[in-house]
């Protein structure tokens, strides 16, 4: 486990260092002044008068935080510092997990305190959703939970592609736009961000998101059926009725497709079909949903598809998505570096990472995690990747190496995580780990290790994680292999 991730043994000073609050040239008094200023910027509920004496004892390690409200106040301050310094300790997707570690740490706290409630998280993060969320926000949150893997914010290095996609969505001659690319290149992420932007800018009044998971791609890149019934068109029409708020259609049972098509033509809607794995699957959907775009295409509504394959249908505009371009890939590497404290790659290492991963964002994430883990030896990664002869063997070499380097406990938690076909909660994983781990601290470390190694991805919803389908496919394969070995 790298020392960049916080743990329960971190001292108060280490937390301050981690978020960028510690300035070796400044006195404790100066730090205290900054601290009290930042306290004033906290939401009222977390504003506390902390004495200089008390702060000094925390700083020197001679005293501990003995009240939960004080701990929350400190967390709030450190979070704001981390934001200012763009550190990922107590910040962004890690906020809830790191806060939990802080509150459980008996190095900084007198006793372990209860973790943050969802409301406290929202308030400490000062999310704009403090006011009642609009129905559009609620709908977007609902749709967000349908998206696998969870979209990553902010989207890096895809400005050109977003513009391109927005232009295509504005083109009246192409009622269906299909983003085509391979695994891990960010089709789903690009589509989510573009469609959100399109709605925010008024291009569409609303969007709907449906995913067909009757097929998946295994770690060898082969499409396989999941044995689940395919998504049916009437389910899609129903989804549109609900998410486009066509209240009058909720009460009808006859001619649903025709009535939906009429509404779709008359409005500004975007229907997203995510995760089309095979040509047959894609063609079937286009056939079944043709009523929405034929005989005359809608003027302002669009269907947006993400797929690994192209369709031969004449009314579909294909937008091929490749890995990030060199400059964008380097910017992406730079951005991902900020997820690790004290990691700053040299320019040449960044360039090499961008080059060997072909700019594939998933590969960059995994390669960077390996780089941090293996003593920052870029040569090792380059050599392994160069032995690959295909896209999927590149993935297997990259991810396989990372998997092998995980601690035994982290491996087990990763294999457990791969069993979930839906979103994963920390609580689920902890309950699973009870079968082979008696120590909750060990579980905590394993979880943090997986997050830092990009195996698990924290979702925007606190305490939830997702896993990339390709990573999941690899881990499922490992589970099967282990089962065979054991048998």
């Amino acid at each position, binding site marked *: 486990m790298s020392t960049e991730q916080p743990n329960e043994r971190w001292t108060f000073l280490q937390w301050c260092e981690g978020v960028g609050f510690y300035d070796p040239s400044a006195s404790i008094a100066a730090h205290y002044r900054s601290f009290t200023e930042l306290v004033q910027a906290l939401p009222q509920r977390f504003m506390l008068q902390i004495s200089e004496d008390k702060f000094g004892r925390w700083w020197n390690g001679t005293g501990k935080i003995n009240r939960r409200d004080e701990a929350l106040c400190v967390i709030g301050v450190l979070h704001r510092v981390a934001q200012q310094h763009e550190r990922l300790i107590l910040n962004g997707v890690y906020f809830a997990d790191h806060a939990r570690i802080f509150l459980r740490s008996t190095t900084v706290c007198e006793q372990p305190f209860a973790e943050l409630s969802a409301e406290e998280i929202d308030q400490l993060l000062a999310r704009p959703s403090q006011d009642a969320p609009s129905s559009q926000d609620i709908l977007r949150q*609902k749709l967000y*939970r*349908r998206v696998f893997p969870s979209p990553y914010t902010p989207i890096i290095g895809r400005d050109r592609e977003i513009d391109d996609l927005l232009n295509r969505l504005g083109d009246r001659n192409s009622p269906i736009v299909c983003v085509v690319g391979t695994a891990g290149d960010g089709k789903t992420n690009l589509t989510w961000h573009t469609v959100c932007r399109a709605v925010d800018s008024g291009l569409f009044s609303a969007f709907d998101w*449906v*995913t067909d*998971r*009757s097929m998946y791609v295994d770690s060898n890149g082969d499409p396989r059926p*999941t*044995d*689940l*019934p395919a*998504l*049916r068109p*009437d*389910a*899609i029409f*129903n*989804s549109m*009725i*609900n998410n486009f708020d066509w*209240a009058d259609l*909720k*009460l*009808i*049972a*006859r001619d649903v497709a025709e009535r939906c098509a009429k509404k779709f033509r008359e409005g500004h809607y975007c229907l997203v079909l995510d995760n089309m794995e095979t040509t047959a699957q894609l063609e079937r959907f286009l056939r079944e949903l043709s009523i929405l775009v034929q005989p005359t295409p809608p003027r302002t509504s669009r269907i947006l598809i993400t797929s690994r394959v192209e369709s031969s249908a004449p009314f579909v505009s294909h937008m091929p998505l490749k890995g990030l371009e060199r400059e964008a890939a380097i910017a992406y590497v730079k951005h991902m570096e900020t997820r690790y404290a004290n990691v700053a790659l040299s320019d040449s290492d960044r360039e090499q990472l961008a080059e060997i991963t072909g700019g594939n964002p998933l590969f960059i994430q995994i390669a960077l995690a390996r780089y941090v883990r293996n003593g920052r030896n870029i040569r090792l990664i380059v050599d392994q990747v160069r032995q690959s002869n295909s896209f999927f063997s590149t993935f297997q070499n990259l991810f396989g190496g990372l998997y092998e380097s995980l601690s*035994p*406990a982290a*491996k*087990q938690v990763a*294999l*457990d995580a*791969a*069993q*979930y*076909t*839906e*979103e*994963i909660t920390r*609580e*689920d994983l902890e*309950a*699973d780990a009870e*079968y*082979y*781990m*008696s*120590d909750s601290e*060990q579980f905590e470390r394993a979880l943090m290790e997986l997050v830092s190694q990009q195996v698990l991805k924290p979702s925007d919803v606190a305490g939830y994680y997702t896993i990339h389908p390709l990573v999941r496919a690899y881990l*499922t394969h490992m*589970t099967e292999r*282990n*089962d065979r070995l*054991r048998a």
Partner: protein
Amino acid sequence: MTDLERDNVEVGVDRSLRAWQAIQRAHHMMCRAEYFQALKEYRRELKKLRTYLTLPDWCSLSNSEDRPSRNWLCVYLFEYYQISHGWQGWRWLAQPVLKSPDLEKLSLRAWSRFQSALGWSYVRYKPLKEIRRMQHAALERLAGQNMPFEEALHHFVLCQVEQIAVRQAQANYHAESALALLKFEETPFYVMRTLFVHNNMYRIMREYDKAQALVDQLREYAEQKGVLRTALGPYIVQGWIYSDLEEYDRAEACFQEAIDFLDEQRLPYERGRALYALGRLHLWHRGFDMAEKLIREAISIYSDDTRYDDPDYVHYLKQGTRSVVAQATYQNVLVSVLAERGQIDLAVEIEQEVLFLLKDVDDRGTHYDILNTLARLHAKKGNRLQSICYRLRAFLMEPRLFIRHNWSDMRSRLKKLLARLRRR
């Protein structure tokens, strides 16, 4: 970490077996009415279920419960589906069992447990006659075998079937048989569910004292098990009785309480039923706006066919989540709201959709309600002939209910007619 733990970590765990045991545990907990722990365990394991479903063990049939098998999986999940619904998903899970030539070779216990669960999943999906035949056949095979729990489960299904068929004597017989065979100390879940279902029959037949006695018993049991404020508790059924007795404030309090705790427990379909009940109450109170709001919310819950995309509905296993029966029932109330406001044409149009929704559903009670509503709507429109036609259809569908519901009206009309005849 101890050496043993290290070994365990390095060797790994049999995740399939672990998941199997967890589902089994959840089932036993729910049978014992350890409601909250069971829900938690079920929900966690269901999120993994699709990973295992293609494994040979999980597709196979077996008498033994030690290893995964599809027939026992269906049985173990039965209680979860009982309170969270989604029977389409359950029926999909059951397909490999139904297609297997080994189904009839299962031990009597394994076969019977699967059959009773299957029977419940067929309610309002297959003709009642077929379910009745299945369950009676199972009871015949169980006769003299000393399997009281298995027998009770078939009676439980038959109680529901006969209630839908509005056959009071048979419904009472099966409910009482089930209650006599079940032991509260062993399977409180089923005792409470039987009381929950059975009191409705008395209420429909307007025998409120008897219905209330069963609800009182249910409340006592629920209190004992600490599940008063849950889907197993009496709030909704108690609300219905108060509502029928025109004790509106008490009924409203019951329904509102149910709406709140079902929301907390993430059981939207049960909550939809409570919303519908409260909406209907407001309709009787002539609170049309509130009635419409509540009913529309209930309809939204039941008409959404895509909620299975949300992880909370993973037990639908990618099957549609729409419940046409519930939607039709609720829409029927919405129609009454529209009619009260004078939007008769729209009300008729929507009621025709309701009839269409129910075209393949064997639920005479609901059909009867809809035909009566259509008769009223046409009477309001001045289409007397149409109205009489629908009344006649309602009578032919459920003569006993028709007479019972219209008895006072019919009696006064009959008196008038006789008086007229005497005068002549």
